[in-house]
Protein backbone atom coordinates (compact mmCIF):
# COMPACT_ATOMS: atom_id res chain seq x y z
CA UNK A 1 0.00 0.00 0.00
CA UNK A 2 1.00 3.60 -0.55
CA UNK A 3 0.79 6.09 2.31
CA UNK A 4 1.21 9.85 2.15
CA UNK A 5 2.20 11.54 5.43
CA UNK A 6 2.66 15.19 6.41
CA UNK A 7 6.00 16.51 7.71
CA UNK A 8 5.56 20.17 8.68
CA UNK A 9 8.35 22.38 10.00
CA UNK A 10 7.26 24.17 13.19
CA UNK A 11 8.77 26.16 16.03
CA UNK A 12 10.09 24.00 18.88
CA UNK A 13 6.92 22.81 20.66
CA UNK A 14 8.57 23.30 24.06
CA UNK A 15 9.72 26.85 23.38
CA UNK A 16 7.69 29.62 24.97
CA UNK A 17 6.92 31.69 21.89
CA UNK A 18 6.75 35.46 22.36
CA UNK A 19 5.80 38.32 20.09
CA UNK A 20 8.22 40.96 18.86
CA UNK A 21 7.85 44.23 20.77
CA UNK A 22 6.09 45.85 17.77
CA UNK A 23 3.62 42.90 17.68
CA UNK A 24 4.35 42.34 13.97
CA UNK A 25 4.97 38.63 14.44
CA UNK A 26 6.71 36.12 16.67
CA UNK A 27 10.22 36.78 17.90
CA UNK A 28 12.13 33.94 16.25
CA UNK A 29 15.45 34.96 17.81
CA UNK A 30 16.96 31.83 19.36
CA UNK A 31 13.88 29.73 18.55
CA UNK A 32 14.67 26.35 17.08
CA UNK A 33 12.56 24.57 14.52
CA UNK A 34 11.46 20.95 14.64
CA UNK A 35 9.31 18.43 12.85
CA UNK A 36 5.72 18.94 14.06
CA UNK A 37 5.17 16.39 16.89
CA UNK A 38 1.79 15.30 15.49
CA UNK A 39 3.43 14.67 12.10
CA UNK A 40 5.99 12.45 13.87
CA UNK A 41 3.08 10.32 15.11
CA UNK A 42 1.64 10.21 11.59
CA UNK A 43 5.01 9.08 10.19
CA UNK A 44 5.52 6.48 12.92
CA UNK A 45 2.09 4.96 12.25
CA UNK A 46 2.80 4.88 8.50
CA UNK A 47 6.07 3.05 9.19
CA UNK A 48 4.25 0.47 11.34
CA UNK A 49 1.63 -0.06 8.62
CA UNK A 50 4.38 -0.46 6.00
CA UNK A 51 6.16 -3.02 8.18
CA UNK A 52 2.95 -5.08 8.11
CA UNK A 53 1.65 -4.46 4.60
CA UNK A 54 4.71 -3.39 2.54
CA UNK A 55 4.48 -0.49 0.11
CA UNK A 56 5.79 3.04 0.00
CA UNK A 57 5.64 6.10 2.23
CA UNK A 58 5.76 9.58 0.70
CA UNK A 59 6.35 12.49 3.09
CA UNK A 60 4.88 15.80 1.96
CA UNK A 61 5.24 19.33 3.25
CA UNK A 62 4.82 22.96 2.30
CA UNK A 63 7.60 25.35 3.26
CA UNK A 64 10.68 27.28 2.23
CA UNK A 65 14.10 25.78 1.46
CA UNK A 66 14.80 25.54 5.22
CA UNK A 67 11.96 22.98 5.54
CA UNK A 68 14.22 20.41 3.83
CA UNK A 69 15.77 19.86 7.30
CA UNK A 70 12.49 18.50 8.71
CA UNK A 71 11.84 16.65 5.43
CA UNK A 72 15.22 14.89 5.79
CA UNK A 73 14.26 13.97 9.34
CA UNK A 74 11.05 12.37 8.05
CA UNK A 75 13.15 10.45 5.53
CA UNK A 76 15.59 9.47 8.30
CA UNK A 77 12.68 8.09 10.33
CA UNK A 78 12.04 5.80 7.34
CA UNK A 79 9.86 7.52 4.74
CA UNK A 80 10.91 6.47 1.23
CA UNK A 81 10.82 9.83 -0.50
CA UNK A 82 9.66 13.38 -0.03
CA UNK A 83 7.82 16.14 -1.83
CA UNK A 84 8.32 19.71 -0.65
CA UNK A 85 6.02 22.35 -2.11
CA UNK A 86 7.40 25.88 -1.91
CA UNK A 87 5.33 28.18 0.30
CA UNK A 88 5.85 30.49 3.29
CA UNK A 89 3.76 30.04 6.45
CA UNK A 90 2.42 33.60 6.31
CA UNK A 91 1.16 32.98 2.76
CA UNK A 92 -0.79 29.86 3.78
CA UNK A 93 -4.06 29.06 5.44
CA UNK A 94 -5.44 25.62 6.30
CA UNK A 95 -7.60 25.70 3.17
CA UNK A 96 -4.61 26.30 0.85
CA UNK A 97 -2.67 23.55 2.63
CA UNK A 98 -5.60 21.15 2.14
CA UNK A 99 -5.99 22.06 -1.55
CA UNK A 100 -2.25 21.59 -2.13
CA UNK A 101 -2.23 18.17 -0.43
CA UNK A 102 -5.34 17.26 -2.45
CA UNK A 103 -3.34 17.99 -5.64
CA UNK A 104 -0.50 15.81 -4.35
CA UNK A 105 -3.05 13.09 -3.65
CA UNK A 106 -4.21 13.24 -7.27
CA UNK A 107 -0.58 13.03 -8.44
CA UNK A 108 0.43 10.18 -6.13
CA UNK A 109 -2.85 8.24 -5.65
CA UNK A 110 -2.04 6.91 -2.15
CA UNK A 111 -4.34 4.50 -0.28
CA UNK A 112 -4.07 6.54 2.87
CA UNK A 113 -3.15 10.10 3.82
CA UNK A 114 -2.10 10.46 7.46
CA UNK A 115 -1.92 14.06 8.68
CA UNK A 116 -0.66 15.31 12.02
CA UNK A 117 -3.86 16.35 13.84
CA UNK A 118 -2.67 19.93 14.12
CA UNK A 119 0.51 21.94 13.71
CA UNK A 120 1.75 23.33 17.02
CA UNK A 121 2.21 26.83 15.56
CA UNK A 122 -1.16 27.70 14.00
CA UNK A 123 -3.07 25.11 16.10
CA UNK A 124 -5.94 25.12 13.59
CA UNK A 125 -6.68 21.39 13.37
CA UNK A 126 -8.41 21.71 9.98
CA UNK A 127 -6.21 20.54 7.11
CA UNK A 128 -7.03 16.80 7.26
CA UNK A 129 -10.79 17.38 7.42
CA UNK A 130 -10.73 20.02 4.66
CA UNK A 131 -8.64 17.74 2.44
CA UNK A 132 -10.99 14.77 3.00
CA UNK A 133 -13.97 16.90 1.96
CA UNK A 134 -12.18 18.29 -1.12
CA UNK A 135 -11.39 14.70 -2.17
CA UNK A 136 -14.78 13.26 -1.16
CA UNK A 137 -13.07 10.74 1.14
CA UNK A 138 -14.00 9.37 4.54
CA UNK A 139 -12.02 10.52 7.56
CA UNK A 140 -10.80 9.26 10.91
CA UNK A 141 -9.54 12.28 12.81
CA UNK A 142 -7.70 12.36 16.17
CA UNK A 143 -6.59 8.72 15.86
CA UNK A 144 -5.05 7.52 19.10
CA UNK A 145 -4.23 4.40 20.99
CA UNK A 146 -6.74 3.81 23.79
CA UNK A 147 -4.01 2.79 26.24
CA UNK A 148 -1.70 5.65 25.39
CA UNK A 149 1.83 5.53 24.10
CA UNK A 150 2.99 3.76 27.28
CA UNK A 151 0.78 0.80 26.41
CA UNK A 152 1.77 0.48 22.77
CA UNK A 153 3.80 -2.69 23.11
CA UNK A 154 0.88 -5.09 22.96
CA UNK A 155 -2.79 -5.30 22.19
CA UNK A 156 -4.75 -3.64 19.42
CA UNK A 157 -3.07 -0.92 17.37
CA UNK A 158 -4.59 2.55 17.08
CA UNK A 159 -4.78 2.07 13.30
CA UNK A 160 -5.31 -1.21 11.46
CA UNK A 161 -5.75 -1.91 7.76
CA UNK A 162 -7.65 -4.91 6.36
CA UNK A 163 -9.93 -5.65 3.38
CA UNK A 164 -9.57 -2.20 1.85
CA UNK A 165 -10.61 -0.50 5.08
CA UNK A 166 -8.77 1.34 7.82
CA UNK A 167 -10.02 0.98 11.39
CA UNK A 168 -9.06 3.72 13.83
CA UNK A 169 -9.51 4.43 17.50
CA UNK A 170 -10.54 8.06 17.91
CA UNK A 171 -10.24 10.12 21.07
CA UNK A 172 -13.51 12.02 21.34
CA UNK A 173 -15.43 13.81 24.10
CA UNK A 174 -16.73 11.21 26.52
CA UNK A 175 -14.74 8.20 25.37
CA UNK A 176 -13.15 6.32 22.53
CA UNK A 177 -14.87 5.82 19.18
CA UNK A 178 -13.87 3.01 16.85
CA UNK A 179 -14.46 4.00 13.25
CA UNK A 180 -14.05 2.05 10.01
CA UNK A 181 -13.30 3.98 6.81
CA UNK A 182 -13.12 2.62 3.25
CA UNK A 183 -9.78 3.38 1.59
CA UNK A 184 -8.56 5.62 0.12
CA UNK A 185 -9.07 7.49 3.38
CA UNK A 186 -7.80 10.43 5.41
CA UNK A 187 -6.54 9.96 8.97
CA UNK A 188 -5.24 12.54 11.44
CA UNK A 189 -2.85 11.41 14.15
CA UNK A 190 -3.04 12.42 17.80
CA UNK A 191 -0.01 12.38 20.09
CA UNK A 192 -1.07 9.21 21.84
CA UNK A 193 -1.28 7.12 18.68
CA UNK A 194 2.25 5.81 19.18
CA UNK A 195 5.75 6.62 20.40
CA UNK A 196 7.66 8.02 17.40
CA UNK A 197 11.08 6.43 16.79
CA UNK A 198 14.30 8.40 16.79
CA UNK A 199 16.23 8.19 13.52
CA UNK A 200 19.41 6.10 13.78
CA UNK A 201 22.72 7.44 12.50
CA UNK A 202 22.86 5.04 9.50
CA UNK A 203 19.32 6.07 8.58
CA UNK A 204 20.22 9.75 8.86
CA UNK A 205 23.08 9.10 6.38
CA UNK A 206 20.79 7.11 4.08
CA UNK A 207 18.14 9.85 4.18
CA UNK A 208 20.55 12.27 2.49
CA UNK A 209 20.38 10.16 -0.67
CA UNK A 210 16.62 9.60 -0.68
CA UNK A 211 14.69 11.43 -3.42
CA UNK A 212 13.27 14.81 -2.41
CA UNK A 213 11.16 16.44 -5.10
CA UNK A 214 10.69 20.21 -4.95
CA UNK A 215 7.57 21.68 -6.51
CA UNK A 216 5.87 25.06 -6.63
CA UNK A 217 2.17 25.79 -6.16
CA UNK A 218 2.16 26.82 -9.84
CA UNK A 219 3.54 23.37 -10.84
CA UNK A 220 0.51 21.86 -9.11
CA UNK A 221 -1.93 24.43 -10.48
CA UNK A 222 -3.10 25.52 -7.02
CA UNK A 223 -4.88 28.87 -6.63
CA UNK A 224 -2.90 30.63 -3.88
CA UNK A 225 -5.70 32.97 -2.76
CA UNK A 226 -6.29 32.80 1.01
CA UNK A 227 -9.65 32.44 2.69
CA UNK A 228 -8.30 33.31 6.14
CA UNK A 229 -5.69 36.00 6.90
CA UNK A 230 -4.08 36.74 10.24
CA UNK A 231 -4.16 40.54 10.31
CA UNK A 232 -2.79 41.27 13.79
CA UNK A 233 -1.16 39.62 16.79
CA UNK A 234 -1.48 40.42 20.47
CA UNK A 235 -0.27 39.02 23.76
CA UNK A 236 -2.67 36.91 25.80
CA UNK A 237 -3.89 38.52 29.03
CA UNK A 238 -1.19 38.20 31.71
CA UNK A 239 -2.12 36.73 35.07
CA UNK A 240 -1.12 38.93 37.97
CA UNK A 241 1.61 37.50 40.13
CA UNK A 242 0.28 35.25 42.88
CA UNK A 243 1.46 34.61 46.40
CA UNK A 244 3.09 31.68 48.17
CA UNK A 245 1.25 30.18 51.10
CA UNK A 246 3.02 28.40 53.95
CA UNK A 247 0.63 25.53 54.59
CA UNK A 248 -2.82 24.05 54.02
CA UNK A 249 -4.45 26.24 56.69
CA UNK A 250 -3.21 29.44 55.08
CA UNK A 251 -4.32 28.16 51.67
CA UNK A 252 -7.83 27.41 52.91
CA UNK A 253 -8.01 30.75 54.68
CA UNK A 254 -7.08 32.56 51.42
CA UNK A 255 -9.55 30.56 49.36
CA UNK A 256 -12.40 31.26 51.80
CA UNK A 257 -11.69 34.87 52.83
CA UNK A 258 -9.65 36.42 50.01
CA UNK A 259 -10.60 34.62 46.77
CA UNK A 260 -14.05 33.82 48.24
CA UNK A 261 -14.24 30.79 46.00
CA UNK A 262 -15.21 28.25 48.67
Amino acid at each position, binding site marked *: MKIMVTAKRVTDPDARIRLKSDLSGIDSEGVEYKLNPFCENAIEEALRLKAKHDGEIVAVSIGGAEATTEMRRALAMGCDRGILVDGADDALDADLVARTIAKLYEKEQPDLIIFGKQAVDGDSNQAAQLCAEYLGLG*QATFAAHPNGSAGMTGGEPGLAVADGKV*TAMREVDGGVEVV*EVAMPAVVSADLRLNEPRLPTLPNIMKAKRKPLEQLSMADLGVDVALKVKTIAFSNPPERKAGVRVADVDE*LLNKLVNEAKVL
Partner: protein
Amino acid sequence: MSDILVVAEHAAGSLKKGTLHVIDFARQAAAKLGGGFDLVVVGPQAAAVAAQAGGYGAGKVYTVEGPAFEQYTAPAYAHAIAEVAAHAGAKVIAGASSSLGKDCLPRVAVKLGAGMASDVVGIGSGNGLTYLRPMWAGNVVGEVEITTAIHVLTVRTAEFDTVEASGGASPVEAVASTFDQATLKQRVVEFRPTVSARPDLSEAAFVVAGGRGVKSKENFSLINDLADALGAAVGATRAAVDAEFIENDYQIGQTGKIIAPDLYIGLGISGAIQHLAGMKASKVIVAVNKDEEAPIFTVADYGLVADLFKVAPELTEKLRKLKSQ
Protein backbone atom coordinates in the same frame (compact mmCIF):
# COMPACT_ATOMS: atom_id res chain seq x y z
CA MET B 1 -33.68 33.96 8.62
CA SER B 2 -30.74 35.17 10.64
CA ASP B 3 -27.12 35.84 9.77
CA ILE B 4 -25.73 33.41 12.32
CA LEU B 5 -26.36 29.69 12.56
CA VAL B 6 -25.32 27.88 15.75
CA VAL B 7 -24.69 24.14 15.52
CA ALA B 8 -26.35 22.63 18.60
CA GLU B 9 -24.84 19.52 20.16
CA HIS B 10 -26.81 17.02 22.15
CA ALA B 11 -26.62 13.58 23.70
CA ALA B 12 -29.42 11.22 24.70
CA GLY B 13 -32.07 13.78 23.83
CA SER B 14 -30.53 16.61 25.89
CA LEU B 15 -28.91 19.80 24.69
CA LYS B 16 -25.23 19.91 25.68
CA LYS B 17 -24.11 22.78 27.90
CA GLY B 18 -21.33 23.70 25.47
CA THR B 19 -23.96 24.94 23.02
CA LEU B 20 -25.12 27.56 25.55
CA HIS B 21 -21.62 29.09 25.43
CA VAL B 22 -21.74 29.17 21.63
CA ILE B 23 -25.09 30.98 21.90
CA ASP B 24 -23.32 33.61 24.05
CA PHE B 25 -20.81 34.02 21.22
CA ALA B 26 -23.66 34.20 18.69
CA ARG B 27 -25.44 36.93 20.67
CA GLN B 28 -22.21 38.98 20.70
CA ALA B 29 -21.64 38.47 16.97
CA ALA B 30 -25.31 39.20 16.24
CA ALA B 31 -25.05 42.47 18.17
CA LYS B 32 -22.21 43.47 15.86
CA LEU B 33 -23.97 42.34 12.69
CA GLY B 34 -27.30 43.78 13.78
CA GLY B 35 -29.35 40.60 13.43
CA GLY B 36 -30.21 37.44 15.29
CA PHE B 37 -29.20 33.81 15.31
CA ASP B 38 -30.73 30.46 14.42
CA LEU B 39 -29.95 26.98 15.68
CA VAL B 40 -29.56 23.69 13.84
CA VAL B 41 -30.01 20.32 15.54
CA VAL B 42 -28.96 17.23 13.59
CA GLY B 43 -29.46 13.65 14.72
CA PRO B 44 -31.68 11.37 16.78
CA GLN B 45 -34.40 13.08 18.88
CA ALA B 46 -33.67 16.39 17.13
CA ALA B 47 -37.26 17.52 17.69
CA ALA B 48 -37.01 16.94 21.46
CA VAL B 49 -33.68 18.81 21.60
CA ALA B 50 -35.14 21.63 19.51
CA ALA B 51 -37.88 22.09 22.11
CA GLN B 52 -35.22 22.58 24.83
CA ALA B 53 -33.07 24.79 22.61
CA GLY B 54 -35.98 27.03 21.66
CA GLY B 55 -35.96 29.09 24.87
CA TYR B 56 -32.71 30.94 24.25
CA GLY B 57 -33.81 33.56 21.76
CA ALA B 58 -33.07 31.85 18.44
CA GLY B 59 -35.04 33.20 15.49
CA LYS B 60 -35.63 29.63 14.39
CA VAL B 61 -34.53 26.12 15.26
CA TYR B 62 -33.90 23.85 12.27
CA THR B 63 -33.92 20.09 12.75
CA VAL B 64 -32.59 17.30 10.54
CA GLU B 65 -33.40 13.68 11.36
CA GLY B 66 -33.23 10.40 9.49
CA PRO B 67 -31.47 7.05 9.31
CA ALA B 68 -28.22 8.62 8.00
CA PHE B 69 -27.99 10.78 11.13
CA GLU B 70 -28.72 8.20 13.84
CA GLN B 71 -25.00 7.85 14.45
CA TYR B 72 -22.67 10.82 14.06
CA THR B 73 -20.31 10.78 11.07
CA ALA B 74 -18.54 13.90 9.81
CA PRO B 75 -19.53 13.60 6.12
CA ALA B 76 -23.26 13.13 6.83
CA TYR B 77 -23.52 15.82 9.50
CA ALA B 78 -21.46 18.28 7.43
CA HIS B 79 -23.82 17.70 4.51
CA ALA B 80 -26.89 18.42 6.65
CA ILE B 81 -25.41 21.48 8.36
CA ALA B 82 -24.29 22.98 5.03
CA GLU B 83 -27.78 22.38 3.57
CA VAL B 84 -29.46 24.12 6.49
CA ALA B 85 -26.93 26.98 6.35
CA ALA B 86 -27.74 27.53 2.66
CA HIS B 87 -31.48 27.24 3.31
CA ALA B 88 -31.29 29.71 6.20
CA GLY B 89 -29.02 32.11 4.30
CA ALA B 90 -26.52 32.06 7.16
CA LYS B 91 -23.33 34.12 6.88
CA VAL B 92 -21.66 32.78 10.03
CA ILE B 93 -21.85 29.11 11.05
CA ALA B 94 -20.52 28.49 14.57
CA GLY B 95 -20.16 25.38 16.71
CA ALA B 96 -18.23 24.45 19.84
CA SER B 97 -14.54 23.49 19.69
CA SER B 98 -15.65 20.03 20.75
CA SER B 99 -14.51 16.83 19.09
CA LEU B 100 -17.65 16.97 16.91
CA GLY B 101 -17.14 20.63 15.98
CA LYS B 102 -13.48 20.16 15.14
CA ASP B 103 -14.18 16.98 13.15
CA CYS B 104 -17.19 18.15 11.19
CA LEU B 105 -17.14 21.93 10.66
CA PRO B 106 -14.10 22.06 8.32
CA ARG B 107 -16.10 19.88 5.90
CA VAL B 108 -18.99 22.35 6.17
CA ALA B 109 -16.57 25.16 5.27
CA VAL B 110 -15.50 23.36 2.07
CA LYS B 111 -19.11 22.72 1.07
CA LEU B 112 -19.94 26.41 1.48
CA GLY B 113 -16.71 27.73 -0.06
CA ALA B 114 -16.06 29.40 3.28
CA GLY B 115 -12.94 30.22 5.26
CA MET B 116 -12.80 28.84 8.78
CA ALA B 117 -11.34 30.05 12.09
CA SER B 118 -10.74 27.49 14.86
CA ASP B 119 -10.98 28.00 18.63
CA VAL B 120 -12.40 31.52 18.53
CA VAL B 121 -11.97 33.25 21.93
CA GLY B 122 -13.31 36.67 21.05
CA ILE B 123 -14.48 39.13 18.42
CA GLY B 124 -12.14 41.81 17.02
CA SER B 125 -12.80 45.42 18.03
CA GLY B 126 -12.71 46.90 14.51
CA ASN B 127 -15.64 47.61 12.21
CA GLY B 128 -15.69 44.32 10.33
CA LEU B 129 -16.37 40.96 11.92
CA THR B 130 -12.93 39.54 12.75
CA TYR B 131 -12.06 36.86 15.25
CA LEU B 132 -9.46 36.38 17.97
CA ARG B 133 -7.91 32.94 18.32
CA PRO B 134 -5.01 31.43 20.26
CA MET B 135 -1.91 30.27 18.38
CA TRP B 136 1.36 28.69 19.56
CA ALA B 137 -0.30 26.90 22.50
CA GLY B 138 -2.01 30.10 23.60
CA ASN B 139 1.21 32.14 23.85
CA VAL B 140 0.01 34.38 21.02
CA VAL B 141 -3.45 35.68 20.12
CA GLY B 142 -4.04 36.12 16.39
CA GLU B 143 -6.77 38.31 14.90
CA VAL B 144 -8.07 36.68 11.74
CA GLU B 145 -10.07 38.07 8.88
CA ILE B 146 -12.10 35.64 6.80
CA THR B 147 -12.16 36.85 3.20
CA THR B 148 -15.08 34.72 2.00
CA ALA B 149 -18.74 35.79 2.22
CA ILE B 150 -19.50 32.94 4.60
CA HIS B 151 -17.55 32.32 7.80
CA VAL B 152 -17.30 28.97 9.61
CA LEU B 153 -16.04 28.91 13.20
CA THR B 154 -15.41 26.72 16.16
CA VAL B 155 -15.75 28.60 19.44
CA ARG B 156 -13.76 27.85 22.58
CA THR B 157 -16.59 27.41 25.07
CA ALA B 158 -14.47 28.15 28.17
CA GLU B 159 -14.02 31.73 26.90
CA PHE B 160 -17.74 32.52 26.67
CA ASP B 161 -20.42 32.59 29.35
CA THR B 162 -23.28 30.17 29.51
CA VAL B 163 -26.61 31.83 28.70
CA GLU B 164 -29.85 31.66 30.64
CA ALA B 165 -33.09 30.79 28.88
CA SER B 166 -34.75 34.03 27.80
CA GLY B 167 -38.22 32.51 27.70
CA GLY B 168 -40.50 32.03 24.74
CA ALA B 169 -40.14 29.31 22.16
CA SER B 170 -38.44 29.62 18.80
CA PRO B 171 -40.33 28.24 15.81
CA VAL B 172 -39.04 24.84 14.72
CA GLU B 173 -38.60 23.84 11.08
CA ALA B 174 -37.75 20.28 10.07
CA VAL B 175 -35.48 20.20 7.02
CA ALA B 176 -35.39 17.12 4.78
CA SER B 177 -31.77 16.36 3.94
CA THR B 178 -30.71 15.22 0.47
CA PHE B 179 -27.80 13.24 1.95
CA ASP B 180 -27.43 9.89 0.19
CA GLN B 181 -26.36 7.32 2.75
CA ALA B 182 -24.95 5.09 -0.03
CA THR B 183 -22.17 7.67 -0.53
CA LEU B 184 -21.00 7.34 3.07
CA LYS B 185 -17.54 5.74 3.20
CA GLN B 186 -17.30 5.28 6.95
CA ARG B 187 -19.18 3.86 9.90
CA VAL B 188 -18.88 3.84 13.67
CA VAL B 189 -18.09 0.32 14.82
CA GLU B 190 -18.15 0.90 18.55
CA PHE B 191 -18.18 3.59 21.24
CA ARG B 192 -16.40 3.00 24.54
CA PRO B 193 -17.65 5.64 26.99
CA THR B 194 -15.59 7.00 29.85
CA VAL B 195 -17.68 6.33 32.94
CA SER B 196 -17.54 8.83 35.80
CA ALA B 197 -19.91 9.96 38.54
CA ARG B 198 -17.99 13.23 38.95
CA PRO B 199 -18.88 16.55 37.27
CA ASP B 200 -17.97 17.00 33.59
CA LEU B 201 -14.42 18.39 33.35
CA SER B 202 -15.33 20.94 30.64
CA GLU B 203 -18.16 22.43 32.69
CA ALA B 204 -17.16 21.97 36.34
CA ALA B 205 -16.87 24.96 38.68
CA PHE B 206 -14.03 23.22 40.56
CA VAL B 207 -11.28 21.06 39.08
CA VAL B 208 -8.57 19.07 40.86
CA ALA B 209 -5.79 17.94 38.54
CA GLY B 210 -2.83 15.61 38.99
CA GLY B 211 0.42 15.36 37.08
CA ARG B 212 3.47 13.17 36.84
CA GLY B 213 4.28 13.95 40.49
CA VAL B 214 1.37 11.73 41.56
CA LYS B 215 3.64 8.85 40.55
CA SER B 216 1.15 5.98 40.12
CA LYS B 217 -2.38 4.99 39.22
CA GLU B 218 -3.00 3.92 42.83
CA ASN B 219 -1.83 7.29 44.17
CA PHE B 220 -4.31 9.03 41.87
CA SER B 221 -6.95 8.13 44.47
CA LEU B 222 -5.55 11.08 46.47
CA ILE B 223 -6.59 13.38 43.61
CA ASN B 224 -10.00 11.67 43.35
CA ASP B 225 -10.62 11.96 47.11
CA LEU B 226 -9.76 15.65 47.12
CA ALA B 227 -12.03 16.20 44.11
CA ASP B 228 -14.89 14.41 45.88
CA ALA B 229 -14.42 16.45 49.05
CA LEU B 230 -14.72 19.57 46.93
CA GLY B 231 -17.42 18.33 44.54
CA ALA B 232 -14.89 18.88 41.75
CA ALA B 233 -14.13 17.29 38.42
CA VAL B 234 -10.84 15.42 38.03
CA GLY B 235 -8.27 16.43 35.44
CA ALA B 236 -4.76 15.40 34.50
CA THR B 237 -1.70 16.37 32.51
CA ARG B 238 -0.63 14.55 29.37
CA ALA B 239 2.27 13.03 31.34
CA ALA B 240 -0.19 11.52 33.84
CA VAL B 241 -2.38 10.22 31.01
CA ASP B 242 0.58 8.77 29.12
CA ALA B 243 1.71 7.03 32.29
CA GLU B 244 -1.82 5.54 32.44
CA PHE B 245 -2.69 7.01 35.85
CA ILE B 246 -6.05 8.00 34.28
CA GLU B 247 -7.88 7.91 30.92
CA ASN B 248 -7.22 10.46 28.18
CA ASP B 249 -10.71 11.96 28.51
CA TYR B 250 -9.39 13.78 31.61
CA GLN B 251 -6.46 15.42 29.86
CA ILE B 252 -6.27 19.21 30.19
CA GLY B 253 -4.18 21.13 27.67
CA GLN B 254 -3.40 22.19 24.12
CA THR B 255 -4.57 18.84 22.78
CA GLY B 256 -6.99 17.96 25.57
CA LYS B 257 -9.80 19.83 27.30
CA ILE B 258 -9.62 23.61 27.59
CA ILE B 259 -11.12 24.60 30.94
CA ALA B 260 -11.88 27.79 32.87
CA PRO B 261 -13.33 26.74 36.25
CA ASP B 262 -13.81 29.06 39.24
CA LEU B 263 -11.10 27.11 41.06
CA TYR B 264 -8.34 24.90 39.68
CA ILE B 265 -6.06 22.99 42.05
CA GLY B 266 -3.04 21.33 40.41
CA LEU B 267 -0.96 18.84 42.38
CA GLY B 268 2.37 17.40 41.25
CA ILE B 269 2.11 19.36 38.00
CA SER B 270 5.22 21.12 36.71
CA GLY B 271 3.33 23.32 34.24
CA ALA B 272 4.44 22.45 30.68
CA ILE B 273 3.22 25.09 28.21
CA GLN B 274 0.88 22.54 26.67
CA HIS B 275 -0.89 22.08 30.03
CA LEU B 276 -0.93 25.80 30.86
CA ALA B 277 -2.63 26.38 27.48
CA GLY B 278 -5.58 24.37 28.77
CA MET B 279 -6.11 25.88 32.24
CA LYS B 280 -4.67 29.37 32.53
CA ALA B 281 -8.08 30.97 31.95
CA SER B 282 -9.21 29.49 35.31
CA LYS B 283 -10.43 32.18 37.71
CA VAL B 284 -8.38 31.04 40.72
CA ILE B 285 -5.34 28.78 40.30
CA VAL B 286 -3.77 26.83 43.17
CA ALA B 287 -0.53 24.93 42.60
CA VAL B 288 1.01 22.38 44.94
CA ASN B 289 4.47 21.19 43.97
CA LYS B 290 7.57 20.40 45.97
CA ASP B 291 9.76 21.99 43.29
CA GLU B 292 9.64 25.72 43.95
CA GLU B 293 10.99 26.36 40.44
CA ALA B 294 8.04 24.59 38.75
CA PRO B 295 6.67 26.83 35.94
CA ILE B 296 3.09 26.34 37.16
CA PHE B 297 3.86 28.77 40.00
CA THR B 298 4.16 31.57 37.42
CA VAL B 299 0.41 31.35 36.73
CA ALA B 300 -0.76 30.34 40.23
CA ASP B 301 -2.68 32.75 42.45
CA TYR B 302 -1.76 30.61 45.45
CA GLY B 303 1.35 28.48 45.39
CA LEU B 304 2.20 25.92 48.05
CA VAL B 305 5.71 24.47 47.88
CA ALA B 306 5.13 21.14 49.57
CA ASP B 307 4.84 17.41 49.11
CA LEU B 308 1.47 16.58 47.55
CA PHE B 309 1.37 13.27 49.44
CA LYS B 310 1.13 15.28 52.68
CA VAL B 311 -0.97 18.15 51.33
CA ALA B 312 -3.66 16.19 49.48
CA PRO B 313 -4.92 14.12 52.46
CA GLU B 314 -4.75 17.11 54.82
CA LEU B 315 -6.60 19.36 52.38
CA THR B 316 -9.19 16.64 51.76
CA GLU B 317 -9.86 16.20 55.46
CA LYS B 318 -10.04 19.93 56.20
CA LEU B 319 -12.33 20.56 53.23
CA ARG B 320 -14.68 17.83 54.45
CA LYS B 321 -14.79 19.50 57.86
CA LEU B 322 -15.34 22.92 56.29
CA LYS B 323 -18.19 21.58 54.16
CA SER B 324 -19.88 19.84 57.11
CA GLN B 325 -19.91 23.05 59.18
